[in-house]
Each structure stands twice: as structure tokens, then as C-alpha cells.
């Protein structure tokens, strides 16, 4: 009787050890993969840029409209707007970058002028960048450790490029940045979103996408 009980307990212990080892072994590859590729971006062209925007040398940056209201911290909204403005200033595509929220004293883009006082033609077309914060969640980091549940952090923005005079939408994109890393945080996700927005503006204003290419992209 005692021998049977001993054998049973050894068998149960070995099964549970085997299961836990198997669990660890099988969960290691996705964990490593997630740490490497855990900050993912999904973007959807809502209105593909089909015109040549290289002629726009002035861009007016608007603060993103926050549709999440108080569900997103004010600090994250500010960080996002700042990242976008900062990123646009580092581009070489524009001679002047104005901030719509600070319209009283438009800031010249010092980096792009190279010490030369560029006289801005008022009649020149102005590109307007505005958009919306559509979704935000900081996620649940504790659940990421045990790899269970809907735990990831997400930030979704919708960016529009418009002509200031006609207010016509020249391009619109939806960008979602998802953070599933255990070691990462919300700030990193916001920073990544800002970079993606800047990258979209850069692509749209430095490269002319032909209608054929647009049609192929949409398909």
C-alpha cells in the first residue's frame, strides 16, 4: 500500500515537473520574440496621398484632437504633440513650421534655415497637419509577465494632411502602435507613435506617389 502511494506521488511529481518544464520551454521563444518585436505598428491608409506634396514648404501643425478625453494622461498627449513637432523640425522638407496653438508667434524652423533668413512668401501653399487620438490604453503590465489576458498597451492616432486654403484632405492615415513588451512602457510607445507620424509626413512630402502606385497600394 505504502509502495503504491509512493509510486503515485513520484509519478504525479514527475508529471507536474514535466509540464512546468514544458511550459517554460515552450513559452521562451514567444517571450524572446515579443521582447524583440513587441513594439508593433499597424497603419492603414484611409485616404492615400495621390498628389505631389513636394511643393509645400510650409507646414502648420495642429494639436491632435483628443477623442479619449480623460482616459489618456495629459502628459502623454503633450509628449505626443511634442514628439511630432520635434520630429518635423528635424526634417529637411519644410522651410517653415508653425504651431497652430502658438499662432501669435510662429516659430521659425532654425535647423532648416542654416543661418539664412528665408523670406516666406505668404501666397505659398501651406500644408496643415492635424488629427485625432482615437484609442489609448496603458495595458496591464502584470498580466504581461504571466502572458495572459488582454494586457497590451495601445495608442491609435488618425493623421490628416490638408491644404490650408482649400481645406481639402490630401492624405489620411490611421496608425496604431501596440506594446506587448514586458520591459517597455507607455512613454516608449508614445515616442514610437510620434516617429511614425513624422515618417508618414516625410514619405508624403519627399516622394511623389503616382496614381498607379496608390491604386496598387489600396488594392
Amino acid at each position, binding site marked *: 500500500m505504502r509502495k503504491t502511494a509512493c509510486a503515485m506521488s513520484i509519478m504525479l511529481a514527475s508529471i507536474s515537473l514535466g509540464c512546468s518544464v514544458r511550459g517554460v520551454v515552450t513559452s521562451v521563444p*514567444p517571450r524572446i*520574440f515579443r521582447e524583440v*518585436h513587441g513594439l508593433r505598428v*499597424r497603419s492603414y491608409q484611409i485616404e492615400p496621398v495621390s498628389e505631389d506634396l513636394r511643393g509645400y514648404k510650409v507646414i502648420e501643425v495642429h494639436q491632435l484632437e483628443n477623442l479619449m*478625453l480623460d482616459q489618456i494622461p495629459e502628459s502623454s498627449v503633450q509628449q505626443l504633440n511634442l514628439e511630432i513637432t520635434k520630429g518635423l523640425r528635424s526634417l529637411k522638407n519644410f522651410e517653415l513650421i508653425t504651431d497652430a496653438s502658438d499662432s501669435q508667434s510662429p516659430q521659425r524652423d532654425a535647423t532648416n534655415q542654416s543661418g539664412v533668413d528665408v523670406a516666406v512668401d505668404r501666397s505659398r501653399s501651406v500644408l496643415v497637419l492635424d488629427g485625432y487620438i482615437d*484609442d489609448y490604453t496603458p495595458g496591464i503590465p502584470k498580466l504581461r509577465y504571466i502572458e495572459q489576458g*488582454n494586457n497590451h498597451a495601445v495608442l*491609435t492616432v488618425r493623421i490628416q494632411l490638408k491644404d490650408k486654403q482649400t481645406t481639402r484632405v490630401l492624405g489620411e492615415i*490611421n496608425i496604431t502602435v501596440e506594446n506587448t513588451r514586458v520591459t517597455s512602457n507607455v512613454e516608449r510607445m508614445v515616442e514610437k507613435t510620434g516617429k511614425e507620424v513624422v515618417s508618414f509626413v516625410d514619405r508624403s512630402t519627399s516622394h511623389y506617389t503616382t496614381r498607379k502606385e496608390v491604386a496598387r497600394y489600396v488594392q
Partner: protein
Amino acid sequence: MFNNERTVKLLMLTVMCTMSALSLSSRCNAQSFQDPPAQEAVEKVAHTTAVGIARRNLENYKGQNGILSMKTLVLGGEFRVTTVIPFRGNVADYSQLEITRPVSLVGGALNVEVSNHQVARIKSQFDSRKIFESVRVIDSYDPALYVGKQKGSHSEIADTHSVQDDALEAPIRSAEDMEVRDSQRAREEQEFEQRSTRTLVTVIEVLDYAKGSRLKQALPLDLGKSILTVRLRYYDKTTGQEIGRQIISGQSDGSSLLGPLSPRDALSGVADGLVDQVTRRVAASVK
């Protein structure tokens, strides 16, 4: 003799039974041909009663935990809900529900077929829950149109009252008259509200969508996740007022016990989340 009497009695009984059966069946036939509205009314009353019973049964309703529960652990299809604008008013006042076809904010990633499938799934879940007398799918809803109308009708009513009752030159009436007037006005307003606050409109905007791949989910590389994120705006149909706003995001990544073989996907999570959120509000109102 005895046999004859008995036979006659039996014959008479048979004739009477046949006659009564014929008359009953003809009456039923006549009713079915002549009174279809009456039948419809009966069906409607029965349906309303069923809705009332279903709503009363919600007293012990406990909301679902979409983030982590036994269901999500076994089958997957978890969801999260972010309430941007909490519900205003009493959701139990709404007896009808209208769901718009999803508005795509993800461009061509969401095609018509997927969109129709989403809305059909949500409708079927609401139908099975039976907490609304009718659930309809509409193409779109523009609250601005209704806001204008409502303002107009309110002002018209106010104008009528002001002309008839509140003219400056009108004599001051007795206290009894004023009481009668007050009760009449309250009744009119109540009737107006009952007429106007009956339909809840849910506008669905798709913010993020990835179909996912069960094959990729089978690989141990955290790939092929199915994702659907929607923004839901809840409107009072007649007033055009937004009474609530939520984000619901569903996902399925093959990490459940059933893995990629699970029948649930991101849409399952969103549908569960939406039905659960509305049911919670109705249950809270019933309590």
C-alpha cells in the same frame, strides 16, 4: 329497441360533435383570414411580455470579465472596454435598438463582407438576449439632423404654450385652473419624453482591424493575432444626443488552451463586450 335508441343517441352525438368541430374550425379560419392585425397585436404583446420577463431576469446579472476569465483562458477571444463617456440616463427606457453598419477608419482593410458579418453577429447576440423589443441594422445615423428637429419641435411646443397660456394680457386664473394646467403640462411632457426616448442608436467605428492567421498563431512566435477595435457612440435617436462612448477591443492570439483551434476570434470578443456593456446598463436600470 334498446339497440335502436342507443344507435340514435350515438348518431346524434356524432352529428353534434362534427357540427361543433366544423363551426370551431370555420371560426378559426375566419379569424386567420379576417384579423391579421389582431394576430400581429397578440404577437407584439407576447414579444413585449417576453422582453419584460427577460429584463426582470437580469436582476442577478453579473457582467463578464473580458480581460481574464475561465472562458478566455480556455477559448480565447478576450476583450477590453474603455469607457470614454459614461452612460447618461436610464438605458432601460429604450425599448428599441438600432445598430449602424461599421464605419471604417482603417481604409480598405475592412471590406463590406467583413463589416456585414460583424454587424450580423452583434445583432444575433442582442436578439438572443431579448432585452430590446426590436433590434435593427441601419446604414448610418447622423445625430446633427435630429438635434435640429428636436430643437424645432421643442420651440414649437414652447411657442404654442406661450401664445395660448402665458400671454401677458391673459387674466390671472384661479389656483385650481393652474393646478389642472400644471398636471396637463406634466402629462404632455411625459408623453413627449416617452415618444422621444425609445430608440437607442449605436454607431460603430472600426479603429483597428487585423484578420489574423491561425497558422501563424500555431507557431511559437507570437504572430498572427486577430484584432478588432471599435469605438461605439450611443445616441438617443430622437434628440441626437450622445449618451455614451466606449472603446471595445477584442483579440485572439492562440494563447488559450484550445490554441489556434479555438472557434473564437477578435469579433467574438467585441460582440461579447458590446452586448455585455449594454446588458449591464439595462440590468442596473432594472434594479
